[in-house]
């Protein structure tokens, strides 16, 4: 048995694509290693649709992983039915794969919306950070409040995050107390910048800066840019995969592969691409969410 030209070239394309993704993920790793205050993934990705502010670490991305794995399974079945020259089987399994692809894209859209619209993350502002010193948060009257240790994970809230944006308290999250100011300014317990980000103030209790009062800084800038770029590039692969699947499905329905009598090789090639998208997700899931 020889490998056909088309299949071989698909493999080489996937090899080059694997290097592209590896480049992004290794870049992510190098930057993460270089920063002491990199956000904790399970604190960042802890929301699930329809459960409001409930703390459900990693559950939603696990669901997304299952969606993609399931669509890989249906794709494999479509390829097998193709080898069997069973047109109806190919159509059914491919349809299920396309539905899986769209479901995944929908989940990703929800995840992005939560990060951008609710938590005010963007490619150049990252409100998720970690403390690099021990300290004590200050209260609105300037007295000392809750203490924390180095490595404490926090989210910088935005005064615009809630409906209306004015006169409402930012809700507690990450075990943080509510801050009750609604306009930019310098308060005893927080510094609110012009974009409405609430940097809580704290007194340092360890290290060379012990005794100083600081306001919580933004987390590493690269986090947001890398997240949106890597998951966006993967999502773009899923999206184009869905488009190609749809085109091939139309061809299958029209019956042109019946005449070729090559066991639906076109379905097999697009199948390789689809499995590759799943393969990349295994690694995105590993480095972005699990580690």
């Amino acid at each position: 048995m020889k490998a056909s030209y088309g299949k071989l070239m698909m493999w080489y394309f996937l090899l080059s694509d694997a290097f592209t993704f590896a480049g992004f993920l290794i870049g992510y790793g190098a930057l993460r290693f270089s920063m002491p205050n990199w956000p904790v993934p399970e604190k960042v990705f802890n929301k699930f649709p329809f459960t409001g502010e409930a703390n459900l670490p990693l559950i939603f991305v696990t669901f997304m992983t299952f969606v993609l794995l399931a669509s890989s399974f249906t794709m494999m079945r479509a390829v097998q039915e193709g080898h069997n020259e069973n047109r109806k089987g190919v159509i059914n399994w491919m349809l299920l794969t396309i539905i899986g692809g769209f479901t995944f894209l929908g989940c990703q859209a929800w995840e992005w919306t939560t990060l951008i619209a609710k938590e005010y993350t963007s490619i150049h502002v990252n409100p998720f950070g970690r403390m690099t010193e021990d300290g004590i948060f200050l209260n609105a009257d300037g007295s000392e409040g809750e203490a924390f240790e180095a490595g404490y994970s926090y989210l910088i809230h935005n005064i615009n995050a809630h409906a209306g944006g004015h006169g409402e308290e930012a809700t507690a999250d990450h075990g943080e107390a509510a801050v009750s100011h609604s306009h930019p300014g310098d308060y005893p317990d927080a510094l609110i910048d012009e974009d409405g980000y609430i940097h809580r103030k704290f007194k340092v209790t360890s290290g060379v800066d012990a005794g100083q009062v600081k306001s919580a800084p933004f987390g590493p800038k690269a986090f947001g840019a890398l997240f949106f770029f890597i998951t966006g590039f993967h999502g773009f692969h899923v999206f184009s995969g869905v488009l190609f699947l749809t085109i091939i499905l139309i061809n299958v329905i029209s019956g042109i592969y019946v005449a070729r009598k090559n066991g639906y090789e076109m379905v097999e090639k697009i199948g390789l691409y689809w499995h590759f998208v799943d393969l990349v997700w295994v690694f995105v899931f590993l480095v972005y969410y699990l580690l």
Partner: protein
Amino acid sequence: MAHDHEAGKKLALKTILILGAITITEVLVALTGKGYIISGFHLAEAILAIIMIAMSAYKAYLIVFEFMHMRHEVKGLRFSVLLPMLLLVWAVIAFFSEGNHWLHNRDQIIQKNEQVPTVKTIKPVGD
């Protein structure tokens, strides 16, 4: 042929079940190791990382060899696709140690940035 087909169906089902089980295990181990399931219980980050990477590598192996059918491809294809991936091993080692180096240099960089630059005044030519 009919027999092959039945075997293929079984293989697809078996593979997806293993992949699903590994994913669940990964998430459970991650959450346990980080103290979400048993309160106060933590695993060392290095141990967690090794477990996660090993399980993900096995998942990748299953996807490439079963879903993508690599097991049954000709030798030339298999080696020309898989061997170049070994280059990434060096990329990972080199870039991660570089990132680690940046971390340890950070204080030095901050100190340097805070130093007042000493500007040498140079006499203009012909003055």
